C-alpha cells in the first residue's frame, strides 16, 4: 500500500489493485462507515448576513483607514503645490517681468523707480521687479527709448552690446544686423565687443552688420522720431528701412531688382502706409505695388 493510502482512498485516488486489496482488509467496513457518517456532519449555523453587517459596522466605526487616506492625498497635493509656489516664486523672481509689443504697436512701461521705457514695434524687454532696488537691469530685444530716473547704474543688455547709464534719456535699437544707441541727455556708456564708448548727449553709436559706423550726423530733437510716429534714417541701408516698415505696418516686404544696400536718408510716417511707401520710394526712384499685406518694391523701368 502506498503512503497515506487512507487519504488516497477517501479522495478516490487509489489504483484498482490497491482498492481491491483495501476492500479485503478487516477494517475496510469501519472506514466505509466513517466515510459515510462523516459526510452527513454539519458545522454550526453561520449567519452570513448578520456577520457581514457586524463587520461593516466595525469598519464604519474605525475611522483610521477612511480618514487617513484623503489626509495623505491632501498632504501630497499640498506638498506639490508648495513646491510649485516656492519654485515659481524664485523662478519668476529670476526671470522677472516681460513686456513685449507686436507689429505696428508701441507701449509705455513704468519701472519701479519711475524710470520710463517706451517700446517701439516688435520689441521686448525683460527685467526683475523684485531685485529692481539692487540692480537696474533690462534685457532688450528690438528698440526702446529710455528715460532713466537718477540713481544707481542702469544697464540695458542686448545681444550686440550693453548700455550703462546713471540717469539720462536715450534710445537703443537692437535689430538684426543693426545696433544703434542715441543719447539725448546725460552720458551713456556703450560696450560693444568688449569696447566701451562714452556717448554724450546728442550723439549716436551705430553698428551695422558688425561694422561700427563713424561720423554720424547729430540726432535732431530730444526724443527719437519714432515716438512722434515717424521713422527717420540717416544714410541707412534700404534693407533696414524695409525691415522697419514691416514692423511699423505689420506687412511683408519683398523686393525685385532692388539693391537693398543702397543708403537711404529720410523718414516715413508710421501711421499712413501710402504716404510711407511714397516717402521711401520717391527719393530712391523705386516703384512699389501693394497687395493685401504684401508690398513689392521693384526697380523703376526707364522705358515706362
Amino acid at each position, binding site marked *: 500500500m502506498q*503512503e*497515506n493510502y487512507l487519504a488516497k482512498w477517501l479522495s478516490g485516488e487509489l489504483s484498482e489493485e490497491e482498492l481491491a486489496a483495501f476492500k479485503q482488509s478487516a477494517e475496510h467496513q469501519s*472506514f466505509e462507515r466513517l466515510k459515510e457518517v462523516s459526510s452527513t456532519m454539519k*458545522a454550526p449555523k453561520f449567519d452570513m448576513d448578520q*456577520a457581514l453587517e457586524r463587520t461593516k459596522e466595525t469598519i464604519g466605526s474605525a475611522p*483610521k*483607514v477612511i480618514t487617513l487616506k484623503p489626509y495623505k492625498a491632501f498632504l501630497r497635493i499640498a506638498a506639490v503645490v508648495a513646491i510649485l509656489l516656492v519654485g515659481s516664486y524664485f523662478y519668476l523672481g529670476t526671470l522677472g517681468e516681460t513686456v513685449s509689443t507686436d507689429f505696428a504697436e508701441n507701449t509705455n512701461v513704468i519701472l519701479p523707480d519711475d524710470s520710463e521705457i517706451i517700446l517701439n514695434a516688435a520689441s521686448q524687454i525683460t527685467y526683475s521687479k523684485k531685485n529692481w532696488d539692487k540692480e537696474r537691469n533690462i534685457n532688450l530685444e528690438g528698440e526702446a527709448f529710455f528715460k532713466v530716473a537718477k540713481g544707481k547704474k542702469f544697464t540695458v543688455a542686448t545681444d550686440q552690446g550693453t548700455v550703462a547709464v546713471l540717469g539720462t534719456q536715450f534710445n537703443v535699437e537692437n535689430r538684426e544686423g543693426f545696433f544703434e544707441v542715441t543719447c539725448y541727455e546725460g552720458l551713456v556708456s556703450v560696450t560693444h565687443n568688449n569696447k566701451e564708448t562714452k556717448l554724450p548727449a546728442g550723439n549716436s553709436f551705430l553698428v551695422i552688420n558688425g561694422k561700427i559706423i563713424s561720423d554720424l550726423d547729430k540726432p535732431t530733437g530730444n526724443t527719437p522720431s519714432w515716438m512722434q510716429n515717424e521713422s527717420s534714417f540717416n544714410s541707412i541701408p534700404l534693407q533696414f528701412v524695409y525691415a522697419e516698415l514691416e514692423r511699423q505696418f505689420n506687412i511683408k516686404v519683398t523686393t525685385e531688382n532692388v539693391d537693398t544696400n543702397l543708403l537711404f536718408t529720410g523718414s516715413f510716417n508710421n501711421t499712413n502706409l501710402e504716404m510711407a511707401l511714397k516717402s521711401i520710394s520717391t527719393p530712391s526712384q523705386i516703384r512699389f505695388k501693394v497687395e493685401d499685406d504684401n508690398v513689392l518694391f521693384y526697380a523703376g523701368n526707364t522705358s515706362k
Partner: protein
Amino acid sequence: MSNVCEDQIFSSIFKAHSKTVFNYIYYKFGNEEKANDAVQEAFVKLWENCAKVSPDKAKSFVYTVANNLYLNVIKAEKVRLKYADHSNDRSNESPEFLMEEQEYKQKLDDALNALPENQRTTFLLNRIDGKKYAEIAEMEGVSVKAIEKRMHLALKSLREKIDGI
C-alpha cells in the same frame, strides 16, 4: 481593475469566504464565538488593507489573518465540538438502528475532539466543506502531501477510537 475597497467586491468576497473562515476556526477550537470573532477580524483587516490586497489574493489573506489570530491562544483549551447534526431524517429505520447510529455519532464526536487540531481541521474541511486536499494545503500553508498525511492519521485514529481498539 476591480478593487477590494469597492463595497460590492468586498461584499462578494465576504459571501464567498466568510463561512469557510468561520468553519475553519471552529474546527480548530470548537468555539463558535471565536469563529465569529475571527471572521470579523479577518475581514476588517482585509478592508484596512483593501488597497494593497488584490481580489485574487483576498482569500488567502483572510485565512492567514484568521489563522494568526489564535496562534497564541492556549492550545490546551479543551475542545468541545458538536458537529454531528444527529438528524433523525431516517425515521423509517428501526429504533435499534437509530440508537446504534446515535451512539456511533457520539463516539465520532468524542474521537474528533481527541484529535490533534490540525488533523481535525483537515478532516472536517474535507468532510463538511468538501474542500480538496490542495485547497486545505493552501489554507494551512503546507504541502498537499502534509495534508494527505494528516488525513491518513485522522482516519486511522478515528477508526481506532470508534472501534475501541
